């Protein structure tokens, strides 16, 4: 089963990390990613830019409305996501647990089973 792991945290707090601290956290996360990738179980990984860079298109009765900012004002923001191939929810939670350990402070990981997945054709 394919799971999306959606990472939520307070982006203001992440914003106070120094470049060195940020890189240290990223290096730890990369270790987790490489382990899962080596097993052929890691799909796309994305880190999103701050919500201030976001724009939301909301459908209404007439023309869709374009709104500056993220879809919802929340205390913790969607900061990135992973796709992992796991045989059970427990395993997917295990992946999230590894991410949580690599990451300091607070944060939440939403583990969400994937219905349809197409890898797409974007080359990075």
């Amino acid at each position, binding site marked *: 089963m394919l799971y999306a792991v959606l990472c939520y945290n307070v982006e*203001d707090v992440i*914003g*106070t990390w120094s470049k060195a601290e940020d890189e240290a*956290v990223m290096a730890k996360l990369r270790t987790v990613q490489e382990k899962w990738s080596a097993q052929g179980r890691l799909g796309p990984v994305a880190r999103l*830019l701050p919500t*201030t860079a976001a724009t939301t298109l909301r459908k209404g009765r007439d023309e869709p409305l374009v709104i*500056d900012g993220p879809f919802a004002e929340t205390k913790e923001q969607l900061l990135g996501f992973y796709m992992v191939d796991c045989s059970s929810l427990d395993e997917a939670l295990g992946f999230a647990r590894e991410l949580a350990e690599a990451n*300091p402070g*607070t944060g939440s990981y939403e583990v969400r089973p994937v219905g349809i997945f197409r890898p797409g054709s974007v080359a990075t």
Partner: protein
Amino acid sequence: MTDLDWIGRALASARPQVMAALLRHFRDLDIAEEACQEAGLKALAAWAKNGPPRDPVAWLIFVGRNSAIDHVRRQKRLVALPEEAAISDLDDAETAVAEQLDQAGYRDDILRLLFVCGHPELPATQQVALALRIVCGLSVAQIARAFLVSEAAMEQRITRAKGRIAAAEVTFETPGAVERAERLAAVAAMIYLVFNEGYSTAGAEAAARAPLCIEAIRLGRLLLRLFPAEPEIMGLLALMLLQHSRHAARFDAAGEVVLLEDQDRGLWDSEMIAEGLALIDKAMRHRRTGPYQVQAAIAALHARARRPEQTDWAEIDLLYATLEQMQPSPVVTLNRAVAIAKLRGPDAALALIEPLAPKLGSYFHFHGARGAFLLQLGRRDEARSAFDRAIALAHTAAEAAHIRRHLDRLQK
């Protein structure tokens, strides 16, 4: 990062909201600051033991208010809140504060706090010092280091600034639309001042001041979250991100300035550039241009050029012309001359800046640019005297060293 590090970061990120709420509550900067500090100290102990609260901002406001209330009660006869240790369920009390935070006034609270620091009656250096102390929570020692002054001198500067603020009597009423727009403009200018204090220095001082750029970018994000549909705030944040994206390439190992066209573009921060460009895209949709957006657009044209010769100088010239109309200033014209030199040669650029001499006669960059154009035209003696003039006006050793390299080339 240890738990204590993390708590420190959480405190820093909560600070603007906490200070804003405490300032509204106590209507006095010093009391609000003490309360904020007290709450931070209690958080260090409590959060390390019990883990972070559900809503750190509400926790800090509640505890800060509580701990300062005894002190204020004597003056204002407010009812004391119960000690947080005595409350069995702090959550309920926090919830009340959290609900208050969600009210519309919250945005104006933070704007007011920022406006107090960027008050038009404060000289620029005091604005920057006050913002770093009050909003960003930097220690006086940290700020003093950034400004290369003693701690005592910085303490005095901040105290003077607070005195002026108290005398200026910023209102605590909900601002009207016009007043809000005025505050927003003053705050944007203050944030850009903080940024420039960090950005415009070179050499040994650059490392000490670089954090100011980061703080300014954080303040810009904070402001944009409060006013998500203001294109000029998007422009301001984009401008700072695009300029700061070059920080690793702007100085060589000896701390000397590396000109834009000589910079290793591989050292530019691609994530900051991506964010800056995204913000410009967002801002353009509003079709309400302004000086920050235009300056950001100029920075974006540099950021988009993989190699210096790919720079779109014609577009940059047009944007500077737009900026000249919006904010007529000889400095803008001087910058435009650089684009003109690329497009039409040094003689056209020289013709553009010569009339600026009466206004920019004591401006380092004027003589530096003039010398460079003269040198390109082969007018060596005039170039030399322009460079000599520039060195005499240099503010930093790095500026002087940069010009001296031109002069050395002239000797050969």
